[in-house]
């Protein structure tokens, strides 16, 4: 999400090739670009002002380390400052109390309900027993939405008849949680505007009565200059313990995170990276700052990959890749594996220089597409899967018919497979899949 910012900085600052100490002239050129880039990334203009002033102060006269130029040095200072702002505050996710209460609040459409389901899944992985509580009696079918999500995760969902006051819903939920032995309660509240005094009062009362161990503000990564006003208004009503930044899988640069952290000191605790309930990632300030500056996020990649790939499988894959024997069967299996890892794009983007390839690969793994890909590959003979080179026009037409897809789709898949094969070959190198050569953390 932050690529354009880093590109822009690199472009502007790459011209500064001075050595010795950073001069005032260097800084002026750089700061103009930094300001515009941050504004374009929707960082609040007041925050931009402060931020630029701080970076300027630190940069002027700073000693340029050996082997780097002035531009790179400024980038480093910008990166350090970004990390400092994003990293402020305590990011521990606390579940205390019995049951522990986690309350989600935010504007309409920010992604609270989906985030509630994602958090529930995350909490199960922490070894706890969550229950979801539908505390949005206003939006049509909000309760059904949470029910459907809960059902998919096999996590109980508590709701009350229409007309029940929100505090009563929550209290009944707590009683129910105790009765059925659930130790974490996730409260999905209705979206509300900060100017709606009645509804702001409602969460004030909820927060006061329940004393949640976490009250998370859900913020859409696409939000513009209002992020700060919104966060401050919610903070006035309830004590916000963290942010969930959603829709990070889009290309919004998410300046909201930086703005809110800078003004309120509220830390980002999670990132929402897709529509599925497994698309939730913990937030790491240094990594995000690194990503802002285009340094890639290798640590997260390695962690996620390790969780998903079992070692032996990866070893086999690596061998196949080395021997150039990667077939369409393997392709299908890999796509399924990668799908388990969450959106492929978000992984690829973490690897320096992989931004473009990520977008392509994403197409293949996106929802829906995979089933069609599966159908296509399953309509091929064993031989065709092992040796896609034999797939001439008539075979391709047969496969399209057999899989209920179209010829262009089949063609696209075969082309994508070729690209994937190339990419995989680059990615593999030695040993395990995630151990990508030359990808040391810079």
């Amino acid at each position, binding site marked *: 999400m932050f690529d354009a910012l880093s590109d822009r900085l690199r472009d502007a600052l790459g011209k500064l090739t001075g050595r010795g100490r950073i001069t005032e002239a260097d800084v002026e050129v750089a700061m103009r670009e930094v300001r515009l880039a941050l504004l*374009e990334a929707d960082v609040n203009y007041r925050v931009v002002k402060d931020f630029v002033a701080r970076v300027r102060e630190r940069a002027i006269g700073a000693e340029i380390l050996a082997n780097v130029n002035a531009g790179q040095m400024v980038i480093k200072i910008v990166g350090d400052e970004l990390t400092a702002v994003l990293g402020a505050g305590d990011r521990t996710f606390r579940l205390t109390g019995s049951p522990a209460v986690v309350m989600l609040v935010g*504007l309409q*459409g920010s992604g609270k309900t989906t985030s509630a389901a994602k958090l529930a899944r995350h909490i199960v992985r922490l070894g706890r027993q969550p229950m979801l509580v539908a505390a949005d009696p206003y939006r049509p079918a909000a309760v059904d*939405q949470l029910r459907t999500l809960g059902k998919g995760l096999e996590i109980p969902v508590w709701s009350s008849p229409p007309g029940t006051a929100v505090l009563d819903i929550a209290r009944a939920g707590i009683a129910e949680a105790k009765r059925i032995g659930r130790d974490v309660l996730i409260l999905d509240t209705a979206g509300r505007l900060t100017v709606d005094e009645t509804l702001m009062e409602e969460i004030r009362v909820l927060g006061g009565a329940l004393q949640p161990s976490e009250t998370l503000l859900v913020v859409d990564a696409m939000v513009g200059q209002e992020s700060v006003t919104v966060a401050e208004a919610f903070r006035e009503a309830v004590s916000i313990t963290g942010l969930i930044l959603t829709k990070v*899988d889009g290309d919004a640069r998410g300046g909201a995170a930086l703005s809110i952290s800078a003004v309120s000191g509220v830390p980002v605790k999670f990132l929402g990276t897709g529509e599925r309930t497994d698309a939730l990632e913990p937030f790491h300030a240094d990594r995000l700052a690194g990503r802002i500056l285009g340094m890639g996020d290798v640590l997260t990649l390695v962690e996620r990959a390790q969780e998903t790939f079992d070692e032996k499988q990866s070893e086999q894959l690596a061998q196949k890749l080395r021997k150039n024997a990667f077939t369409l069967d393997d392709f299908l299996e890999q796509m399924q594996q990668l799908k388990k890892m969450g959106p492929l794009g978000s992984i690829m983007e973490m690897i320096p220089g992989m931004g473009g390839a990520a977008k392509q690969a994403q197409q293949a793994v996106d929802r829906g597409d995979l089933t069609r890909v599966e159908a296509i590959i399953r309509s091929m003979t064993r031989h065709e899967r092992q040796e896609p080179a034999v797939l001439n026009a008539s075979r391709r037409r047969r496969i399209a018919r057999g899989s209920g897809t179209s010829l262009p789709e089949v063609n696209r898949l075969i082309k994508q497979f070729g690209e994937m094969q190339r990419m995989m070959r680059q990615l593999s190198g030695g040993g395990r899949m995630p151990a990508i050569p030359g990808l040391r953390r810079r």
Partner: protein
Amino acid sequence: MTQTDQRDAQASIEAGVARSRAGFATRLRGLLGGSPDADAWEEVEETLISADMGAELAVGVVARARARRDVIPEMAVRYELLELFAHRDAVPWPRKPAPGVPAVVLVVGVNGTGKTTTIGKLAHRFASRGARVLLAAGDTFRAAAIDQLRIWAQRVDVPLVAHAANADPSAVVYDAMDAAVARGTDVVIVDTAGRLHTKSNLMEELSKIRRTIAKRIPEAQPEVLFVLDATTGQNGLTQARAFHESAGLTGIALTKLDSTARGGVAFSIEQALGIPVLFVGVGERMEDLLDFRPDDFVAALFG
């Protein structure tokens, strides 16, 4: 809604948001009164940026306004802002292709911007003006999206065509076109799942829905309404561009203007793509949809 209702609603919104906007407007007017110096002009620029206009556009507007000698500074800024809006033809929206052919409105946008709610409001608007409306539940993906639209259909008392969850949206749309022709419907409004504009297969799905409409009703000239949340920042332009590319937008609804946000990204979108903002959403009730008027929108910035 009658003209009076519309004015009443407008008045109540203005009152509602007056408090949050007062500071903004006072600041703008304060800065532009008399003869602003360089610092004041820079602050005007910042104020426009704080309304999500985007730095580049704000810088341009201020530079042009500063250069004007024909009017006082405040008017110069107002005029330059108005310049950014596309010319509006007085044609009906949605277009009614021919007698017996339903008008079709396809509603698109990223997740959570207010598509389904806007559909409820539009259905209410058209139905209360005597049109026969039909809704199509084209969001088969998000949990309970169909139920949500069904509730709106019941509220507004219009029929709904829906399939089961996870059905092919194009199939739903095809059936809805069939039903519309059979029933002599005037307007079909099609809901779609929220989608990030970066997901190419989902964007392709929109093109497919368009093709389905064209296949079933070749004379149809579908209106494609892009629903944009007013709190959106600069990404709004990127979104609009991508949706325009795959679905061919013919109008924009700017929602949640009852919030503290000012929706300034609408300036950039009209300026860049020439797609008119037609409606504004100002609440969650079916009446909370107003016609967009550039003068009012710009005037609102000045209080």
